[in-house]
């Protein structure tokens, strides 16, 4: 009766160097042991001034830097910038180039989602799925290497199309891979996605409601995981996406609540299936022809502010480009999905276990270089 023990919260630094923060992100956690009472993400450890570099480089010269914004989905990162500049100078991209862009973009989306899924599994203690998914990713890297010669930062898209055409039997190789990959994915689902322990770790953890997801400006799979059926490829179509048939998967509360970590995870799984579908259609529809429009060596776009956005694996990537009519941008602002995904963490973290926090970070698919740029 009466006298209570004096207790206080313990402040722990998770990161900047912590095994599960996917790079260098720091979380300042106030905890009473296992329960998180407060969690504040501290970003900026991987800041490389890419936006500032954009003001120094020529328009074409900045494309390789966009690779480094999101190295797990470099194709998609190229795309948004190229799209912006093409809109500014009014270049028409050849149809074959558009299809190639869609194909490499979707392949890259698959490989990025594989990392997201595998890293989530690894954070929850399943090491085997991560390694096996990396194995599948190697095949995708092989295919992309055939197309452009690089395995991580591709620099494949250029303003006005793509740099090179793909080798002759590339389409068959992609089709072959997809047949194999669907089966491998099924095996992987048996190993991890439908594992009871895994589901119990992910279900009803870190639930983001529909209102919160919209209010905190979540994008991509994180937004769709909360039950919002919004996809730039469908709602603000660009490239040849209007001609392609695909569904927009969204969270349906498969294991309890709409918008929990498992929903976000599952949306990624389904997006992989949709990407496979898209690539199959592209293989059938891709025409012959040029892959690059004629673009002048020194691009001088008109004065003005342009905004371009594409759907990357981590959601909407937007480039706000201000041009003063010279050979380089006056100002470039990059908007990425990871940054807004981080902002939801202080909101949903209180009350969860430390282990849950790791599951949530994994399911939000935060990538440090995209976060800090």
């Amino acid at each position, binding site marked *: 009766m009466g006298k209570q023990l004096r207790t206080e919260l*313990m402040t*722990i630094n998770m990161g900047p160097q*912590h*095994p*599960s923060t996917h790079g260098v992100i720091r979380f300042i956690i106030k905890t009473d*042991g*296992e329960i998180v009472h407060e969690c504040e993400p501290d970003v900026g450890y991987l800041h490389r001034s890419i936006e500032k570099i954009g003001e120094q480089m020529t328009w074409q010269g900045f494309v390789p830097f966009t690779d480094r914004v999101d190295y797990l989905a470099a194709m998609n990162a190229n795309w948004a910038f190229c799209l912006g500049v093409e809109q500014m100078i009014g270049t028409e991209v050849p149809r074959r180039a558009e299809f190639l862009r869609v194909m490499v973009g979707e392949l890259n989306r698959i490989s990025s989602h594989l990392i997201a899924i595998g890293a989530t*599994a*690894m*954070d*929850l*203690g*399943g*090491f*085997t799925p991560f*390694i*096996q998914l990396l*194995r599948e990713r190697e*095949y995708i890297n092989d295919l992309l290497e055939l197309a452009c010669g690089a395995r991580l930062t591709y620099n494949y898209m250029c303003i006005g199309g793509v740099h090179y055409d793909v080798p002759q039997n590339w389409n068959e190789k992609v089709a*072959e*891979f997809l*047949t*194999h*990959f669907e*089966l*491998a994915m099924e*095996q992987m689902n048996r*190993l*991890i996605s439908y*594992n009871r*322990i*895994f589901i*119990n*770790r992910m279900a009803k953890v870190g639930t983001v409601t529909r209102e919160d997801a919209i209010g905190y400006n979540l994008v991509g799979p994180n937004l769709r995981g909360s039950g919002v059926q919004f996809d730039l490829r469908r709602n603000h179509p660009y490239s040849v996406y209007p001609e392609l048939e695909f569904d927009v998967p969204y969270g349906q509360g498969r294991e309890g609540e709409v918008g929990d970590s498992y929903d976000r995870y599952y949306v990624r799984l389904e997006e992989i299936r949709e990407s496979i579908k898209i690539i199959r259609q592209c293989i059938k529809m891709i025409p012959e022809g040029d892959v690059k429009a004629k673009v002048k060596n020194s691009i001088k776009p008109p004065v003005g502010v342009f905004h371009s956005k594409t759907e990357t694996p981590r959601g909407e990537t937007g480039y706000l480009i201000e041009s003063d009519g010279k050979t380089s941008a006056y100002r470039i602002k990059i908007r990425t999905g990871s940054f807004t995904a981080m902002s939801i963490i202080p909101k949903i973290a209180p009350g969860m*276990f*430390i*282990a*849950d926090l*790791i599951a949530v970070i994994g399911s939000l698919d935060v990538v440090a270089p995209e976060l800090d740029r």
Partner: protein
Amino acid sequence: MIIETMTSLGVPELLAKFVFALLVAFLSINFIAVYAGVISVVERRVAAKMQSRVGPNRVGPQGSLQWLADGIKLILKEDLIPDGADRFLFKLAPFLMAAGVTATFAVLPWGPSNAIAADLNVGVLYLISVTALVVIATLMAAWASNNKWSLLGGMRAAAMIVSYEIPVAMGLLPAIMIAGSLQMSTLADAQGWAPWDWIVFNNPFAMLGFLLFLTGSVAESNRTPFDLTEAESELVAGYATEYSGFRFAVFTLAEFANTWVVGAVSAAIFFGAGHVPPMLAALPGAAVVVFVAKTFFVVLILMWFRWTLPRFRIDQMMDFSWKYMLPLALVAFFGQAIYFLGTWDQPGIQIVVSHVMVLAFLGVFFLFINRVAINVKHQGVVVNSPQTEIAYLEKIGKIKPAVVEDAAESEEEK
């Protein structure tokens, strides 16, 4: 025998016993060191096989000497004690951990039922109590490290090991009731060479007891899915975060030695210890080979668990212990008692039940192997190229040959 030889040579009995004890301790500790090293390499190779990579294969033939290289590396590393650490406890903890594991080797059999260093009449009780020493060592290491992640790991370890002690101990109860003794040699002798003479197949409740024992042991030896104490993606390395060099090596050693303890106890109490078929009984060392094979089988199962399953969360783990395993342990205990009361004077029923159990197990086992074989083959083919795997899947009829599909499509087009 050694003691008798020495006393007949005129050595005082007390001294002879002391020398014998030293000898046994020396042998056990060296066995642990070598076993832990070897099994660490084996585990890495098994994990690599499961994850379609190669694993350590450079030092010695097929990487078999990797553990020596690792040991030398760890010994040569700087022995770091963090500022603000409790130096005495920090140094003591690894050795207490090792002592806890080593002490269990006193009552572990080595094949023939009489080959036990100290055949205590409370052997199982001793085993259970000595294993619990590990909690103190873990807590000590966690507290002394002056690191918050370590502390979290230590608290988790305490909670976990304390709650899993109970199902483990109660899982052993059916076996103890069947043998009517806590003594290891009596437990081993209560069984025969054939599977239907083993305690695990004696009746369904003994089987349940074994499953509970195995699950609880995985938790007690801190392996996935219960490796919350050192969950590397959550707590960096748990209680061992601040340890380096040889002290860390001792922790790892104790952990790997624990797998042997789990395997040997399962083999001795549930899998018929070192009993060999009568026609092989004349072969020297047959008992040891049989026993070690059974032990390694259990160790392999532990590895399989570790590299397949993800990790529990702390509350789920506690729920699992108190809400599911404890009631099941009670079911096993009372079920065994009732079964015993019902059939103690009817050996016929007992024989039928044990044979049916063996048959049922074999059925389930082959079904399981059959399922697993598909995955294993799939995996073996997949590493080379997608094409070879497609060919393989066509061969086993899992997918239709691509040519046929194309033909069908062209027909449709026509």
